[in-house]
């Protein structure tokens, strides 16, 4: 059943070729402007100040890692929000709910479809970023980074259910989701080191899986291993079940409430 949802979403997505092109274009332009802005402020590609505070002095590499991880982390939320919203706008959501398939499975299928599409686009943007900025990268580093990337993704895959529930209930929560996503971009040290932030914000950033996965991947790129960032690994292992639990409980509440008011259209 999940595969049926994925197949359907892929068919419809690729019937809009312009959407594919625009997604890649937006992704690369967004990255370029941040990297060039950062380099302009730092006075060049390499910063000793950045290296002193993060262990990584090459700004394009620093920004590309944070950006790709941020993209991977927000894509499940985007997938839930827009996946459900599209169904509501099409008027097909209720038809799906009426089927004997579990709603949570249908939503997971929707999320998975957009996640796969987003990840494909992200890989293209990443490769373009590597080529444009001549990022020193090896296959070993990429392979070693995959568990940290997957952990971040996994945490937000569960947390995304909150947004799926809220979209069903409140219909238009796109702006709310975007506030959350950009707050995460700001609070996780994607484009600048967290050490420049006030102490309470640094403490708050510990609650975001992205903060830790970015730290781990940057450490791997700097030639260190997982043990060097053991505290971030521990945080990630703690945050994954917590995010799933919060996501699932809030989703169930939203689902019950939606059944009282109706799934309705958009």
């Amino acid at each position: 059943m999940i595969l049926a949802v994925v197949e359907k979403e892929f068919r419809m997505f690729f019937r809009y070729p312009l959407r594919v092109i625009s997604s890649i274009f937006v992704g690369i332009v967004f990255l370029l402007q941040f990297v060039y802005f950062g380099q302009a402020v730092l006075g060049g590609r390499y910063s000793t100040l950045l290296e002193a505070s993060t262990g990584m002095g090459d700004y394009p590499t620093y920004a590309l890692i944070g950006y790709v991880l941020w993209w991977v982390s927000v894509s499940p939320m985007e997938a839930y929000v827009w996946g459900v919203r599209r169904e509501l706008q099409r008027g097909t959501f209720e038809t799906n709910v009426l089927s004997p398939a579990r709603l949570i499975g249908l939503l997971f299928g929707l999320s998975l479809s957009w996640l796969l599409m987003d990840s494909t686009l992200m890989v293209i943007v990443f490769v373009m970023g590597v080529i444009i900025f001549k990022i020193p990268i090896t296959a070993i580093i990429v392979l070693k980074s995959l568990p940290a990337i997957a952990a971040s993704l996994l945490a937000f895959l569960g947390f995304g259910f909150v947004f799926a529930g809220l979209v069903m209930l409140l219909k238009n929560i796109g702006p709310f989701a975007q506030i959350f996503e950009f707050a995460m971009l700001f609070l996780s040290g994607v484009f600048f080191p967290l050490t420049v932030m006030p102490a309470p914000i640094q403490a708050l950033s510990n609650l975001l899986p992205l903060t830790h996965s970015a730290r781990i991947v940057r450490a791997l790129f700097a030639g260190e291993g997982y043990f060097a960032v053991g505290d971030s690994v521990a945080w990630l292992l703690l945050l994954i079940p917590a995010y799933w639990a919060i996501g699932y409980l809030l989703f169930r509440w939203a689902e019950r409430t939606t059944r009282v008011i109706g799934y309705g259209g958009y």
Partner: protein
Amino acid sequence: MWTIEAEGLRKSYPKKIPLPFRKVEWVEAVKGVSFKVKKGELFGLLGPNGAGKTTTIKMLTTLLEPSGGTARVLGLDIRRDAREIRRKINLVAEGERTLYWRLSAYENLKYFARIYYVPKREERERIETLLKLVGLWERRNDLVMNFSRGMKQRLAIAKALINDPEVLFLDEPTLGLDVQSAIFVREFVKRLVKEEGKTVLLTTHYMAEAEELCDRIAIIDHGRIIAMDTPEGLKRLVKDEETVEIRVRELKSQSLGESPFSMAVIEDDTSTGTVRLRAQVDEEDLPRLVEWLVKRGAKVLSVEKMEPTLEDVFIKLTGRGLRD
């Protein structure tokens, strides 16, 4: 055993989304509806817009949680056994946006076959049979967005049969269709009941449709069932009274509210200024009715005695027409 049993079914909607710590007012849309439908019966819920028909259907199809009362479909409780019920029923919902317009007819049915867990080995044959049944096999590879309203409705019916449901719910199935498509849908529904033995619950606000299709009809108004019988049985409610149709011009329709007669507007043709009224009056009262209309500035064009219809039943029971 009854196929559908509703007992005191009630539904209230909140005026705002009921978030924690928020005081919310509730509006009662269905106020204790009770009826039973037997296997192979075509049962109609007839009523004006906003009467509570769709809400009732959504509760019975497990899409909405009832606020009170109980209901069973195929012996299963709509609250407890929602998933089991969903395997055995299907719904043709009101409106044309229940399909994926950017998928073809075939792809739509394939998707729904999968989420209804139709066995893979049966999938292809079932889709082909259904598309042929609704006359869309030749157009199976066309995107739904290129279909006419009638074709989309035919596909929506095929989609609703994908799981071979024992009970089919049809919510205003001919709403907005052209005459030919509406005839197709009605004939198709009749065949489903007669030849396939399906149980059908249909909502409509078209009296002729209810009369033509339904074995029994429940007339619903303001969330309550006000009468329930066979079409003939319902019409017997008005058999002792004369039904007349009066065509008038220059009548201010708001003045009908003060009328001492059971009367309702059937058609208001704004281009000619002509209004068709139906009224239940006995022979002695007819001159008084005409006089009453003339006094309100109406020019009476014709008065004709008519056979009673379900609209007359509704007028008698509510004092107004289905379209009011």
